[in-house]
C-alpha cells in the first residue's frame, strides 16, 4: 500500500467516523446520567432533513447546522418528557423516537429528495495539511470535522475535569443519593438528553450538509445504532469513543482499501461490513459481564421518581 492511498484512507476514515463520533459523544453523556436513549437514529434523520431544507432554502450552511441541532433537541425533549418525566420505559421510548423520527423525516423531506446542494468543502490548513500520512486527515477537513475536534475536547474536559461531569456521573450512578444531596436528577437528566439530541442533530446535519450534501430517506443507514454500540465498546470512556468512532469509520470504507489493493467484492456484501463489525465488537466486549458492570452507569435505563 503506498503512502497516497494511506493518506486518503486516513482522511476518509476521519470523515466517515465524524458522524459516529458526534452521536456517540452525545449518547455517552446521556447514558452517564442514567438515561438510555435508543432514539439516536430518529434524531439524526430529523436533524439531517431539517438542516438540509434550511441550508437549501436560505443558502446559509451554518444556519442549517444550527437548525439541525435544534431539530435534534426538539425530538430529544419529546423523549425526555415521556421517558424522564413520565417514567415510561426508556427502551420503548427510544424505539418510539426512532420510528417517529424516521417517519417524520421522510414525511417532511419527501419533496426534497435528490436535490443538489453545495455543501461544506474542505479547508486545507497551509503547511500542516502537507504532513505525509496524517496531514490530510487532520488539517484538510471541512469545518464540521474541525468542529467535532473542538466538541470532543469540550466533552472530554466536562467529563473528566469539571464539576458538571461529577454531577452527571453521580446522577447516573445513584439518583436517590444525588437527590438527597440536593441535585435535581430530572433537570440533569433532561439536559443530558438534550445534549444528546443536539449532537445527534449535528451529526445528521453533517451527513446532509458535508458528507453527502443531499437528502435521502434513511440516509443515516443505522449510524445511530452503531453509535450506541460504540458507547458500549468505549466502556463509557471518552477517549475510547474517539478511537472507536474512527475504527468504525475505517470499517465502513474498507471497500476503498480493497479497491486500492485490487480486490473487488459485490457492493452489497461490502456494505454489510460495519454492521458485522459492530456485532463482532459487541461479542468481544460483552463476554466479560463483570467488566461491563464495572463501567456501565449503575442506574442506566431505570426510571427515577422523586420522593423515593
Amino acid at each position: 500500500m503506498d503512502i497516497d492511498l494511506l493518506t486518503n484512507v486516513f482522511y476518509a476514515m476521519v470523515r466517515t467516523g465524524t458522524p459516529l463520533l458526534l452521536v456517540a459523544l452525545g449518547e455517552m453523556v446521556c447514558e452517564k446520567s442514567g438515561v438510555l436513549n435508543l432514539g439516536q437514529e430518529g434524531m439524526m434523520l430529523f436533524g439531517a432533513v431539517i438542516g438540509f431544507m434550511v441550508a437549501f432554502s436560505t443558502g446559509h450552511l451554518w444556519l442549517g447546522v444550527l437548525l439541525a441541532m435544534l431539530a435534534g433537541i426538539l425530538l430529544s425533549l419529546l423523549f425526555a418528557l415521556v421517558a424522564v418525566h413520565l417514567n415510561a420505559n426508556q427502551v420503548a421510548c427510544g424505539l418510539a423516537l426512532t420510528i417517529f423520527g424516521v417517519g417524520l423525516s421522510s414525511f417532511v423531506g419527501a419533496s426534497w429528495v435528490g436535490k443538489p446542494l453545495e455543501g461544506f468543502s474542505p479547508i486545507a490548513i497551509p503547511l500542516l495539511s502537507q504532513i505525509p500520512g496524517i496531514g490530510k486527515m487532520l488539517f484538510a477537513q471541512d469545518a464540521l470535522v474541525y468542529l467535532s475536534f473542538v466538541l470532543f475536547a469540550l466533552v472530554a474536559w466536562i467529563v473528566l475535569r469539571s464539576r458538571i461531569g461529577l454531577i452527571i456521573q453521580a446522577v447516573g450512578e445513584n439518583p436517590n443519593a444525588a437527590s438527597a444531596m440536593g441535585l435535581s436528577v430530572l433537570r440533569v437528566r433532561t439536559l443530558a438528553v438534550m445534549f444528546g439530541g443536539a449532537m445527534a442533530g449535528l451529526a445528521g446535519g453533517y451527513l446532509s450538509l458535508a458528507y453527502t450534501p443531499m437528502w435521502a430517506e434513511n440516509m443515516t443507514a443505522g449510524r445511530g445504532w452503531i453509535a450506541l454500540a460504540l458507547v458500549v465498546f468505549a466502556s463509557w470512556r471518552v477517549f475510547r469513543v474517539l478511537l472507536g468512532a474512527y475504527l468504525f469509520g475505517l470499517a465502513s470504507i474498507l471497500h476503498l482499501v480493497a479497491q486500492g489493493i485490487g480486490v473487488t467484492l459485490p457492493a452489497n456484501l461490502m456494505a454489510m461490513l460495519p454492521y458485522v463489525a459492530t456485532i463482532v465488537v459487541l461479542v468481544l466486549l460483552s463476554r466479560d459481564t463483570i467488566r461491563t458492570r464495572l463501567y456501565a452507569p449503575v442506574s442506566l435505563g431505570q426510571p427515577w421518581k422523586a420522593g423515593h
Partner: protein
Amino acid sequence: MLLSLEPRAQPSRLMMLLSPVLAGLLTLISGSMLFGLLGRDPLQVLHTLLIAPLSDLYGIGELLVKTLPILLCALGLALAYRARIWNIGAEGQLLIGALAGSALAVNIIDMESRWALVMVVTTGVLGGALWAGLAAWLRTHFHANEILTTIMLNYIALNLLLYCVHGPLKDPEGYNFPESALFGEASRLPTLSDDMRVTIGVYFALFVLVAIWVLAQKSFLGFQIKVLGLDRRAAGFVGFREKRLVWIVLLISGALAGLAGVCEVTGPIGQLVPQVSPGYGYAAITVAFLGRLHPFGILLASLLMALLYLGGETAQMSLNLPMAVTGLFQGMILFFLLACDVLIVYRLRGKKRPRSIMARSTGAVLHQAPAD
C-alpha cells in the same frame, strides 16, 4: 402545570385498555393539526387514510393482505417483549424468511407436487428462526445486547437480500432487473377466492393467534416468560432457566417473522424482489405495544396498522401525500401510548400545593441489566 401525578395503590385495568384508544385519538388530533398546517383539509386526508380504503370488498381483502405479515411479526415480538427480550429484528427475520423460501422456490419451479409449497414455507420459517437464533446465541453465549444485535442483523439481512436479487437469485431471463424468477404454481399459496389477493396465509395467522394466546396466557411456559420479563432475579431464585427462555422466545418470534416473509413471496408477490417489506417488521414493534402484548389486542392493532399502510398508499395516489405518513403515524401513536400509559400507575390530580411530592411508584425501579 396545574396537574400533578399521584401514584395509584393498584395499576388501573381500565386505563390499561383505555390508553391505546386515547393514544389513537391523540394521534388523530395531532395528525389533523399537522395536515391543517400543511394546508390540507384534515377531514379529507383522514377519510382517505382511514375510511376510503375499506369502501369495497377488494379493499377489505387488501387490508387482510397487509394485516397478515404485521400480525405474524407482532405476535412473535410480543412474546419476546413479555420476557423483556427486545427483539427489534422482525424486519430482518422476515427478509431472511422470504430469502430462504425464495432460494428454494426458484430451484423447484418445475415441481408440481403440493409438497413444494410445504417445503418452501418450512424453509422460510426455519430461515427466520435461524436469523433470530443468531441473536439468541449471541446473547446467551456472549451476553451481547439483543437490541443492537437484532438491529444490525436487520441491516445485514437487507444487504444479503439485495446481494441475492442482484446476484445469485437474479432471474437469468429477467432483462437484468433485480428480481428472482416467478415461482412455480405449486409453491404459491392459494388465494381465498379468485378475485382477491388474500391467501390461505390468514388461516396460518388465525392458528398462530390462538396458539400464542394459549402459550402466553394459559401455559406455565408463558408464566415463566412473564416472570422473566418482570423480575429476572425472582425467575432465577425459582429456577426458571433464563437462557432456555431466551432461546424459546427468540426462536418463536423469528419463526413467525420468517413465516410472514415467506407468505409474502409465495403469496401476493410470487417472486423475490428487493422491496419484500415496506417496514412490516418495524411496524410490528408499534403493533405489539399498542396491542398491550396481548394476542387479541395485537389482532386489533395490526388491523389498524394495515389500514394505515393501505391508507398511505391511497393517499399517495389520490392526494399526492408521501407514503411516509404511515411511518409518521406509527411513531406518533407509539409515543402517545407510552405517555398515556403513565395513567395506568398514576392518576391525575389537581394541584393543591406549589410543590409536588410523589411517593414511590409501584415497582417502577426494576433492576434492569445495563445495555451490555
